[in-house]
Structure formats: C-alpha cells, structure tokens
C-alpha cells in the first residue's frame, strides 16, 4: 500500500476530529472529542498543524493521523492513531517518520510522548522508533462529595498571573499537558497557597474549566514547600473541594512517585488509568 502523508493544516478541525475519533473507537480509553475540544487542545498544547500529519491512501482513504506539539527546542507527539482496519500497514510508522522529519527541520532537540499503559502495539512502535521510558503517571478522578474533614491553615487564592508565577517555581519535571506553557495558554488557570499552623506550607494550581452548564477542575499540580506532603496536600485539596463542592475533578499525569498521592486518595480520588511517558533525542 502506498501511503500519502499530508500536513494536518490542510484539513478542517471537523475533518481532523472525525478522523481522530475513528482511530480511537476501539481504544482502552477512547476519549472522543468534538471540533471545539480539539481546537482548544491544539491551542492549549501548542500543536503545530503544519508539522502534524494525516495519512491516507493514494485514492484518498484516511488511515490515521498524528499531531506534533512544539515549544522552544522540544516536541511532543500526541493524538497518534490509525483506523482499526488500517493497522499493521506501516501507517503509524510513516506518521512518526513525518513528524521526526518536521521536528528535525525545526531544529528541535528531543520529543516526548505518552502512551496509555497496556497499549502494547503503540508502546512497541515507540520503542522501535528509539523512544525510552522516562516515568509513569496516573490519571485520576474524583466525584463531587461533601467535605467533612476539618479545614486548617491560612489560604490565599491565586489568580491567573499569581498561579502562573508560582508554577514557574515548581522544581520537578511536569508533563507537556501540565507544563507552564499549557497553563499560560488557558484562561481558566488558578490556584491556592496554604500555610498550616505547624509551619507546613505549599500550593496547588489547577484549571477551572467552565462548560456550558457546570465547571470541572483539572490539571492539578501540588507542591509542598515545607512540612509533610501528605498533610499539606490533603489540606490543599480539602480547601479546594470545599470551595468548589459541586465540581467534578480530573487529575491528569500525577507522577507515580508523587509524595502527595496519599493525599489524593484521602480525598476520594481513584485511578482511571496510567500513562507511560517516553522520550527520544533527535541526535541519536
């Protein structure tokens, strides 16, 4: 089969959305999108549609697509998918080669991606393309329910600029979707900082996305400046959920070794699935 690779910028957002949804129809976690959500995704995560790609046959039958995020010297491969009937045809490999060529032409130094744990065919494709594992992350949910634990500490609520400034001080690695640039691109970014009576202190930043009918909290990042991370993290989350008692919450890409994991669990978060982050330098 001859595969044509066409820059994604030549397709409408609706066409890209329909193709993306078809590639995910049988996924472990399908996560379909509509055109508005995909447009928001492209904006928030700095997707470069000129260097993203649609694969199709020479007679125009779509095979799959992949997107490339670009920030400074780094790339991020995302939304890669091939239609179920077109798998094992080399389309996934061709899509990746297209993006490697684009990233190299842009002078980028390395690329990251995340793959859902147990998606073995995709994982093996990435290994064969020179990616190695860096970390494993959890995607967690919390349904709204009343807070009964006592609240402690002095809380300062952080507006967009304050939340961005504090996120810049975060000393650990953050995946692409939670990175400073992603939050800077999102108007609904905010946070809180806490000082506990025992000297513990820390902050929590997040997105408070307003849907038509109800808001949702997502993209949470917690940092403990002083004290016990479980205690500081639990008080940050308690204050957050007490402030937003009716919000559904989606915490993506929480590092498996994050010292605040137990705080999330205390607050009723549960794991939906895991993602493996992988990296490939372009100098190899």
């Amino acid at each position, binding site marked *: 089969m001859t595969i044509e690779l066409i820059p994604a910028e030549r397709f409408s957002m609706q066409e890209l959305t329909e193709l993306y949804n078809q590639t995910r129809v049988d996924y*472990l*976690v399908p*996560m*379909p*999108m*509509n055109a*508005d959500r995909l447009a928001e995704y492209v904006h928030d995560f700095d997707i470069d549609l000129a260097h993203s790609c649609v694969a199709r046959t020479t007679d125009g039958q779509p095979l799959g697509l992949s997107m490339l995020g670009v920030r400074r010297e780094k790339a991020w491969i995302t939304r890669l998918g091939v239609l179920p009937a077109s798998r094992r045809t080399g389309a996934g490999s061709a899509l990746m080669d297209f993006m490697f060529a684009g990233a190299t032409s842009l002078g980028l130094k390395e690329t990251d991606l995340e793959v859902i744990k147990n998606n073995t065919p995709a994982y093996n494709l990435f290994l064969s393309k020179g990616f190695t594992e860096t970390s494993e992350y959890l995607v967690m*949910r919390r*349904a709204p329910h009343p807070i009964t634990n006592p609240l402690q500490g002095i809380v300062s609520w952080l507006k967009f600029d304050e939340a961005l400034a504090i996120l810049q001080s975060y000393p650990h690695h953050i995946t692409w979707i939670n990175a400073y640039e992603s939050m800077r691109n999102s108007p609904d970014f905010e946070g809180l900082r806490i000082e506990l009576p025992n000297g513990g202190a820390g902050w929590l930043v997040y997105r408070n996305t307003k849907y038509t009918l109800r808001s949702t909290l997502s993209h949470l990042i917690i940092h403990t400046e002083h004290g016990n991370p479980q205690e500081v993290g639990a008080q940050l989350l308690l204050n957050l959920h007490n402030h937003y008692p009716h919000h559904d919450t989606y915490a993506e890409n929480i590092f498996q070794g994050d010292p605040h994991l137990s705080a999330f669990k205390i607050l009723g978060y*549960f794991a939906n699935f895991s993602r493996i982050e992988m990296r490939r330098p372009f100098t190899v």
Partner: protein
Amino acid sequence: MAKILYIEDIQDNITLVEKIVTSRGHEFLYAKNAEQGLELAFNSTPDLILLDLGLPDADGQTLSVWLRGNPALENIPIIVLTAWPEEVVQHTVEAYNLNGYLCKPFNMRDLLQIIDKTLGAKAL
C-alpha cells in the same frame, strides 16, 4: 413499559441497543453527546439512562454529575455501558453514585436483565 435514554456517540452501539430495548416494548431515545443528552433528559424525563463514559464534549462521569446535580433528574437511575476495564468502572459507579454497569461487549440477555432489575415494576 419504560422510556429509556441512551447517551452514546457511536452509531453502531446505538443501533444495537435500540434493537434490544425496543424488542421489549420500551420507548427508546438517544443522544450522541453530553449536552444533547442533558437536554433530552430535561425534556423527556426518562425512566432510565444508559450512559457511555467516552463522549466527545464532556465525558460520562462529568455528565452524571450534571444529571445528579439537578433536582428534576437526580433520581433517574443511570446504568453505565462501557468498554473500560471493569475495576475502573466499579470505582466510577460507586464514586459517582450510579446504579450499575455493563462492560462491552455484552449480549442482549445481560442488557435486558440489568434494565429489568433497575426499573423493577416499570419494566413490565
């Protein structure tokens, strides 16, 4: 007989469930995304909602929060139909105060059983 709303974005699944549900004489409604589903739930007040977790605008968990958060809809039973791993679905059903689940692929008998069990006398 009951009025059953199915919120699911994949047409093949809608067609299959419609056949099963109407074979028992129930009225069948469907919506392909969360906002349409919410609107249809408001306008038609179904006896039961069958809910997919992966929807294109807001996912099934978020939609269930919207449904449960509205006094006019909060008592409508919600059954999750999903291909997600069973352990995750169990947590989801418990945390979001839903009424049950069926993991795909399922057969006609399984679906009718859970509908009958959930609806009780309304299923007759």
